[in-house]
């Protein structure tokens, strides 16, 4: 087990644009071969994203983490947590890295879908950051970081 960051900067992260008014992924992590990743709730996420064309994403935008198993249909994402854009819009990337204002950015998983608060994704599973926003995001501005543990098989 190694502590790493689930980040949009990873080599196996794909960042795409969402569809307006339609819950769609904006970042997809395709777990590499011979690897398992484990994410647990309770940590603070760090995120920065602008709306397409610049400026903050609308306050009504919702983001969440979702997973998809290998044989699920392409749009079958199971959302395990949802959070609002507001605490990320108000803080710069630098301020988000201080723990003082982390409370509103802690990720909680849906207890029905992730009963013990931690999720292990195996090789060929996919994890995504999904967005449900009234507008499109600027995918080049997206940055997301959440602690995870990586295990080699």
């Amino acid at each position, binding site marked *: *087990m*190694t*502590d*790493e*960051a689930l*980040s949009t*900067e*990873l*080599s196996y992260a794909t960042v795409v644009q969402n569809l307006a008014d339609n819950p769609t992924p904006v970042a997809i992590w395709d777990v590499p071969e011979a690897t398992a990743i484990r994410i647990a709730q309770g940590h603070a996420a*760090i995120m920065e994203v602008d709306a397409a064309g610049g400026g903050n994403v609308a306050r009504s935008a919702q983001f969440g983490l979702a997973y998809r198993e290998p044989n699920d249909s392409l749009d079958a994402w199971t959302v395990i947590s949802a959070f609002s854009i507001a605490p990320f819009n108000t803080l*710069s*990337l*630098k*301020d988000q*890295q*201080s*723990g003082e204002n982390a409370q509103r950015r802690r990720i909680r998983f849906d207890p029905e879908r992730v009963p013990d608060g931690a999720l292990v994704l195996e090789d060929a599973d996919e994890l995504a950051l999904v967005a449900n926003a009234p507008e499109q995001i600027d995918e080049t501005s997206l*940055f997301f*970081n959440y602690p995870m543990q990586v*295990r*080699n*098989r």
Partner: protein
Amino acid sequence: MSARPSRPVYLGPDAFDFKTYTPGVSGIVATAKVPSTQVWQVPTGMPLVVALVGKQTATATASGTTSIDLDPLAPKVDYMDDPTQGEYTSDSYLVGYFDSDADGEPDTLITDSTAVQYTGTFGEDSDFVTSVEIEETGDTERTVEFFAVMRHGLTKIQKRNSGKGNISQELQSEDSITWAYSNPDAPDTDRQITWDRANGGLRGVIPPKFNLDLVFFDKEFGTSVANANAANVEISLPVSQRPLRDDESPAGLRRKVTLNMADPN
């Protein structure tokens, strides 16, 4: 002799050999080698500093001001000099060079009194510098280069054996932006990045002649740490260094550590 204690050693940019990097691959950009008679041990909990830099090239138009948009943006790094406050040194988070003698090599530091100079106007967006305004005071179009702390990508620290069977093991990994905004001088903030406690025990032992590498990855932007002008690379990795004990052989220690690295976590 055998009881000589370990002492802290700070590996700075001088201790590393820098290598060129191509975006899109995960590559070693800096390597420090353990001396052949010494053993390094990772002092868990000690603060780390890693700020790699990337190069951007632009042109300053003859006798006039030019505003240069930075891509990627330059993060304002707490522990480095701040050009927006007039600190135009070779050790700030954004350093500019211009070509003073038309040899095609921008190698003269830009300050507020050089032939190409800062006007003092910077575009800023919260904790980033987005643009720089410079003025060319002569009558020559000049090539300028800026070295800004990396905002994008991942930067990892790994140990790697020497010789055959190149095995490496990752010790610590963070986003470049997390490294840039770390604050080594403030232990009570959690922006301080310290050696991970997982690096205690045999995992944190780096035997003689092993390498300690910085590995960088980004899809789009490269680092230019190997460039002679990239003097604002900031690295400070504390290790505790001790001589080999009388009952230790370098080869034996290397074998023991390598076997431990091959074991999947």
